[in-house]
């Protein structure tokens, strides 16, 4: 898929032949090991000096290598590995840079002055692994409570409460926790007053009707004008990545449902594309189309929630009811197909859990006939409403360059005028077979983000219609030994298949060692699972790149100077899901 020898040559001609060591990966993304001391030069070079630069820091994560089964031979031996994923829109290409760190609590140079969105990623790595970043402006915990002891994604950290001994709350711990709850503006890098005024600090959340979940935003206000806004995240952190390390490849699927909990099976898809790359499974056509159809239904469902709640944030009471009842219609289809509704947990390694039920065509057809009328009605109710426009046009603007700098993907990026959709540009799961447009807008404000999403629903509907008309016949699961659960009917013929079925169901499939990353256009932006296998029944490391995380990081940048009311527009137009931020 990737023709990435060019990038390697460019890097080698600038930094010398021996600086980089290439590693083969299952996803065929150019993967290079490089020494830590040249990290900043290489990244700066890739970001700004090469032609067709890698302008987006797509993801930054770490891997604790200390208990890994098979050390990959010839590569730098490391206690920890830092993994940088960069993306170039011009080349339509990823590059993965790895840095080996050998100490128990290592230190690496911070790249937060190269990419604005590296700030939170580095804090997350620090929080999860205890790796320090030199030169980071505010290196503190981000997802875990500030009083937490240990760094959860280190392998010695217990994965479940039962491994931690009974919980006891001594008096001094109470005092400590109470003290940690006290708000001191200085700890968040905030001034208490300026030359001419004292600031007011307003906590939006963790419990607040406007935040759509447990999110806390510390507002530094001068009157009603926002001087600074600091999102405090992590209230919804459930350790989805850590859980992955003790689940089998198969039994982790339901956990993915709950990451972007409005995206439903779309999360399954992001995870499974990566697993299937590791396993080398090519899924049948029917599976692809079923997956696409369900994903697009979920995209509409997710956008409907956004649409309704966005209008509600701006004080419009009614649309949310109409839109939730439309979403209910989608859930009726989902329920008929999957049995579940919000978290159907329906895709399987190499296929889907069951074939489509009898009569599914009618359900989908009814929805396809019904929905466009409603969308038109919503246009006149919401999008054309002049008060709605007054609250969203020209609010929360970011430019295309800023969007890329901060790692914005999805509708937010397209609202800045960039025609970029991973379904079109890097097709997966058969999206290349479908005929649909990429809606864009020009101004990058809250209204334009809404315009893009509304149009996306129409496009999703087109895709669903094509799925309906062209559903291929065939099996609903690939013929491959690593699919889960293995097809039952073959097991009754001989003892060998019975044994392999038994093992595959009880232990789970053993994935070949290697690593792979997926990247899908999820409802909120680019979602990807970067999986590392050391040849076991469970992943060695699961890294989930979610769109909401970088989007939320951008909040202070785009809300400064606006008022409290505008911040609600900005939050609403961002369309984030707390579990998608905190994982």
């Amino acid at each position, binding site marked *: 898929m990737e023709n990435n020898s060019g990038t390697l040559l460019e890097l080698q001609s600038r930094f010398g032949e021996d600086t980089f060591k290439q590693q083969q990966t299952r996803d065929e993304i150019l993967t290079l090991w490089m020494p830590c001391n040249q990290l900043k030069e290489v990244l700066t070079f890739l970001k700004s000096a090469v032609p067709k630069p890698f302008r987006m820091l797509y993801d930054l994560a770490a891997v604790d290598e200390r208990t890994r089964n098979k050390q990959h031979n010839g590569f730098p031996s490391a206690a920890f590995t830092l993994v940088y994923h960069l993306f170039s829109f011009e080349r339509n290409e990823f590059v993965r840079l790895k840095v080996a760190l050998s100490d128990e609590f290592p230190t690496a140079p911070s790249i937060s002055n190269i990419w604005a969105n590296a700030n939170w990623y580095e804090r997350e790595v620090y929080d999860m692994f205890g790796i320090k970043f030199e030169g980071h402006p505010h290196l503190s915990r981000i997802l875990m409570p500030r009083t937490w002891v240990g760094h959860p994604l280190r392998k010695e950290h217990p994965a479940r409460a039962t491994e931690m001994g009974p919980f006891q709350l001594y008096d001094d711990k109470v005092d400590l926790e109470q003290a940690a709850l006290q708000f001191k503006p200085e700890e968040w890098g905030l001034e208490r007053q300026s030359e001419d005024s004292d600031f007011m600090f*307003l906590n939006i959340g963790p419990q607040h009707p406007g935040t759509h979940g447990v999110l806390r935003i510390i507002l530094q206000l001068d009157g009603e004008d926002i001087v600074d806004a600091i999102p405090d995240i992590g209230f919804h952190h459930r350790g989805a990545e850590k859980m992955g390390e003790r689940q089998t490849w198969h039994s982790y699927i339901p956990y993915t449902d709950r990451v972007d909990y409005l995206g439903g099976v779309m999360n399954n898809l992001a995870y499974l594309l990566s697993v299937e790359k590791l396993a080398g499974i090519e899924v049948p056509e029917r599976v692809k189309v079923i997956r696409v159809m369900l994903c697009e239904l979920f995209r509409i469902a997710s956008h409907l929630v956004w649409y309704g709640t966005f209008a509600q944030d*701006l*004080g419009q009471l009614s649309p949310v009811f109409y839109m939730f009842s439309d979403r209910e219609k989608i859930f009726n289809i989902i329920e008929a197909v999957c049995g579940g509704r919000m978290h159907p947990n329906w895709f399987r390694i190499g296929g889907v859990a069951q074939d489509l039920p009898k009569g599914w065509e009618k359900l989908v057809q009814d929805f396809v006939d019904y929905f466009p009328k409603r969308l038109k009605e919503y246009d006149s109710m919401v999008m054309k409403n002049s*008060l709605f426009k007054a*609250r969203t046009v020209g609010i929360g603007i970011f430019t295309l360059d800023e969007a890329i700098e901060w790692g914005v993907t999805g509708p937010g990026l397209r609202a800045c005028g960039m025609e970029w959709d991973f379904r079109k540009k890097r097709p997966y799961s058969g999206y290349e077979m479908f005929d649909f447009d990429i809606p864009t807008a020009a101004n990058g404000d809250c209204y334009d983000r809404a315009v893009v999403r509304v149009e996306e629903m129409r496009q999703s509907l087109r895709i669903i219609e094509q799925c309906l008309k062209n559903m291929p016949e065939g099996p609903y699961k690939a013929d491959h030994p690593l699919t889960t659960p293995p097809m039952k009917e073959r097991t009754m013929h001989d003892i060998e298949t019975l044994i392999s079925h038994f093992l595959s169901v009880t232990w789970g499939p053993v994935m070949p060692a290697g690593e792979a990353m997926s990247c899908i256009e999820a409802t909120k932006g680019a979602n990807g699972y970067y999986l590392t296998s050391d040849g076991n029944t469970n992943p060695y490391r699961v890294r989930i790149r979610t769109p909401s995380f970088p989007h939320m990081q951008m909040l202070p940048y785009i809300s400064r100077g606006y008022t409290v009311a505008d911040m609600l527009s900005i939050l609403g137009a961002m369309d984030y899901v707390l579990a998608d931020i905190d994982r």
Partner: protein
Amino acid sequence: MEAETTSYLLIIGVTLFVLLNVAALLIWVERRMLALWQDRYGPNRAGPFGLLIVAADSLKLFFKQDWIPPFADKKVFVIAPTVVLISVLMAFAVVPFAPGIVVADLNIGLLFFLAMSSMGAYSIILGGWASNNKYSLLGSMRGAAQMISYEVFMGLSLMGVVLMAGSFNLSDIVLAQAEMWFVVPQILGFIIFFIAGIAETHRLPLDIPEAESELSAGFHSEYSGMKFGMFFIGEYLGITLISCMVVTLYFGGWLGPDFLPPIVWFILKVAFFIMIFILLRASLPRPRYDQLMEYGWKILLPLTLLNLLVTAGVLLWLAE
């Protein structure tokens, strides 16, 4: 003399009783109507058509713990919700429901109404201030600014009616509309008065002092139990009051064809405008606070002045 006193007391008593019940009933009306327009059921379990939700809600409010936050300014915190209730009820004193059915037929009725409705601003400011809560404070600051600005147009928009009727007495104003309802010549005044009325009662779309999605509950965030109940009832009474005033000033009050008694006409007209209030709440988003101010001062104020000027000019011209 005694009979007169008795009839006064009777009117006061009946008016008070009816108004408080109407306000409580509006809880049900609003919830059912909103539900109707939002494709859902609304309260339909307690009693016929869910009517007993009114009793349930009132009982709940009465028996809730009457909590005063320890950080609040206690005296002001208690006084604030009573101000809104009392001032709105006082304003009803001058409303002529039908010929002879009016508590106080003042010759400055209209001014009395304006004075009383302005008092409502105090309860928002004091309530928000005494709560000692940042959300409440923001809400009450917004509320103060909003109500004081909209007071200006409210008063001025009514002057057209006063010019045409030649009186501040509300009964006289109604009678002056026997030929033609004032809404026809004073359409602009009516629209401005109605908008100002929404702002005055701080209802969606102009519920900026509360702004649920921004300020949780704005100025009454800290209120619970019957103190909250007073704000609540005050709001519904406010809607009723503004609807009564709209009907009295622009839609001929109790006047109507003879096949229905005057009081019924009055009630029907008022009910219509209450429905408009609810429908507006169901359909419009909320503008931003500074947009509201700008709209008021830059658009409504010039229009109001223009309306007043033209009305006065035309009247002078006709008089000559």
